[in-house]
């Protein structure tokens, strides 16, 4: 009896083998995004952005007359799922390109897979290891972490700050930043007098900022992407820390400013220009792209557009441009086309790709921002 039931279940496996035949005249694009789980603040806006763009492109009649078929898979930020889904996308769905994953850990685990499967990977994760060493089929859209760190250090030099306390969270984002800070500090003559890592779900960081304050630092540099970053500034001000507070580009979410209230005033951080799109001068080349993305996203989803969704926007833009340029949906041709793309205006900056540079952004993709009266403003303006 038990054996019969067992066999029935086993047969069920065999039965799942029917896959619907795919329409021939579409361009298949896969997306591996952490829509749920610990990195959902990245994956959720990315997925929404991609859905929005795909609708829009298809409404316009697609690319070269072909519609885009978007296959989004939620990895929940776990590499084992990313790997399993990547294999499905490459082998079964035979996608032209994969957008994502949202995190560096996942990207690094499928980098070889994309390379061997000749599938273009447009990662939405920031770490430099993704594109250095360069893999033929692997690209990324977010700015390098080192750009952000250098921007901050340059600003510190202007303010004559030389002793800083560093705080970071135990996420991929926090740790990648910490590594760059530690590496770049000596050459910028910045001394790290206190260096603390805290948990991403930390609810109060008084003890950590107390330690930082006691170290005699002139400024606090926090590198994280969670709510903890507004807790840091709140607690620092509560215990009477008077120095400057710097944050990473992860601070680019107005919700965190709102959550921190007055404590957020005067915080300095680097970010893409999306956050200050409305105050950019009209002659800024990114202005129109930024404004239209922001407007469309906010109208459709009733929430603020974030720079993370912007990474997915850039990935899709680059892909469509490359397909048009190559006038082909052959992965090798499109890949070659990406390497020749110059001056593509995205939300993160202006992309200039080359065979050696699979990120295509430069230092000036970041601009230093601050918080003035609960709003983002360009520093020094």
């Amino acid at each position, binding site marked *: *009896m*038990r*054996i019969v*039931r*067992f*066999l029935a*279940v*086993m047969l*069920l*496996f*065999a039965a*799942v*083998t029917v*896959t619907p035949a795919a329409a021939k005249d579409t361009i298949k694009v896969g997306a591996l995004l952490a*829509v*749920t*789980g610990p990195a959902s603040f990245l994956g959720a806006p990315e997925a929404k952005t991609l859905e929005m763009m795909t609708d829009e492109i298809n409404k316009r009649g697609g690319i070269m007359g072909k519609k885009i078929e978007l296959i989004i*898979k*939620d990895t*929940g*930020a*776990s*590499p*084992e*799922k990313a*790997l*399993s*889904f990547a*294999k*499905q996308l490459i*082998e*079964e769905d035979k996608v032209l390109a994969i957008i994502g994953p949202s*995190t*560096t*850990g*996942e990207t*690094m*685990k499928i*980098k*070889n*897979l994309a390379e*061997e499967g000749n599938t273009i990977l447009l990662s939405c994760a920031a*770490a430099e290891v993704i594109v250095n*060493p360069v893999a033929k089929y692997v690209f990324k859209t977010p700015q390098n972490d080192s750009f952000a760190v250098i921007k901050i250090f340059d600003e510190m030099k202007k303010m004559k700050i030389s002793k800083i306390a560093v705080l970071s969270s*135990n*996420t*991929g*984002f*926090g*740790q*990648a930043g910490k590594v760059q800070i530690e590496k770049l500090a000596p050459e910028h003559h910045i001394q790290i007098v206190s260096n603390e*890592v805290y*948990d991403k779900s930390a609810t109060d960081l008084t003890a950590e900022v107390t330690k930082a304050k006691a170290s005699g630092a002139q400024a606090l540099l926090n590198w994280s992407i969670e709510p903890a970053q507004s807790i840091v500034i709140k607690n620092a001000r509560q215990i009477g820390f008077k120095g400057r507070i710097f944050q990473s580009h992860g601070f680019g979410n107005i919700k965190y400013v709102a959550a921190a209230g007055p404590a957020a005033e005067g915080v300095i951080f680097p970010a893409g220009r999306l956050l200050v799109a409305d105050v950019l001068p009209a002659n800024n080349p990114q202005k129109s792209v930024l404004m239209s993305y922001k407007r469309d996203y906010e109208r459709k989803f009733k929430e603020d557009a974030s720079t993370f969704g912007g990474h997915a926007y850039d990935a899709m833009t680059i892909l469509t441009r490359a397909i048009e340029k190559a006038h082909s949906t052959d992965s090798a041709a499109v890949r070659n086309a990406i390497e020749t793309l110059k001056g593509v205006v995205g939300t993160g900056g202006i992309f200039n790709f080359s065979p050696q540079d699979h990120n295509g952004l430069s230092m000036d993709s970041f601009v230093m921002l601050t918080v003035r009266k609960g709003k983002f403003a360009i520093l020094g303006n």
Partner: protein
Amino acid sequence: MRSRIYLPLLIFIAALIGVQQITSYTGTAYYLTQLTMAAYYCLVIVGLCLMIGYAGQISLGHAGFFAIGGYLSAFLTTYDLTPMKDDRIISFLAKAGFLWTREDLYGGQMLIFQPWAACIAAVLSAVLIAYVIGGPVLKLKGHYLAMATLGFGTIVYRIVLGMTALGGADGLSDVPPFKILPFLEVSGEMSDRVQNYYIAWGLVVVAVFLSLNLIHSRIGRALRSIHGAEDAANAMGIDTARYKLYTFVLSAAFASVAGVFLTHYNGGIGPSEASIMKSVRYVAIVAVGGMANLWGAVVMGTLLNFLSLRGYFGTYDDAVFGAILIVIMLFVPRGLLHMDIVRDLKALLSGRDEEAV
């Protein structure tokens, strides 16, 4: 008697071969990828089933043992020892054949541990840790046991997440393939897919074989007596503590072996493998299978992991497992694949007292 125990095992092996043959004839060999990964999770589940179903001890920290196995072998096979190669211990290890050199991403030479050496070290560590903490942990009962195992799992998760050497939130990548025999290799290469399917399921078959033997031996009877009434078992002169510890260590060994092999298969590991949610999933699967039902656990473990890894649950992946836990525990606490499921449901509806699980 013996043949009745092993008959299902033979059918199981036949079914495994059958599935592989079907996928190869229908050109759907890609299903083997997820089936292989599911097999490694099944290995954890077989061990956990012994713990929960037969010894009656809950563990909410089994992902911890999986992670110890996976992370240790990943670390040892990716950590470059070149700067220390003149160290006496390292040069001894190199001479004894524990180490080898591999070309890294940038084309440089890395001196790293052989996968088999790393595997042995990883599994031994997991077993040792299980043995050391097993003593005091298994003295606890009920909520305290649940909390202690949950605590263990949390500590492993925190350490994995906190240590830069283990890659923090990004985990470890670029783990080399594990050559078991000259023609047998654990790797994610597409060309190795069929052999990896058999390696993975071979391990499950071995684990099930060992477990069946255990269940039908004196130890198994002792375990069931622990589950039924521990004090009575103790009074009968059964060394309950020893048998519980024995099962705990064995299940930790299964989990760590699964961790080692899946890490080589995936070419890396991330902290999600150590998370509490993973431990809870394992418990959920054992519960669906029917607690003291090894075959139920294997079947449900394969099915649910396969569906999850195929992405059928979408953004409801965790919710599905939560719902399963509630529904099964509420309505059919003895599992879905139970012979008397209809009777159970009737008893439930008629409002008769059911036996405690």
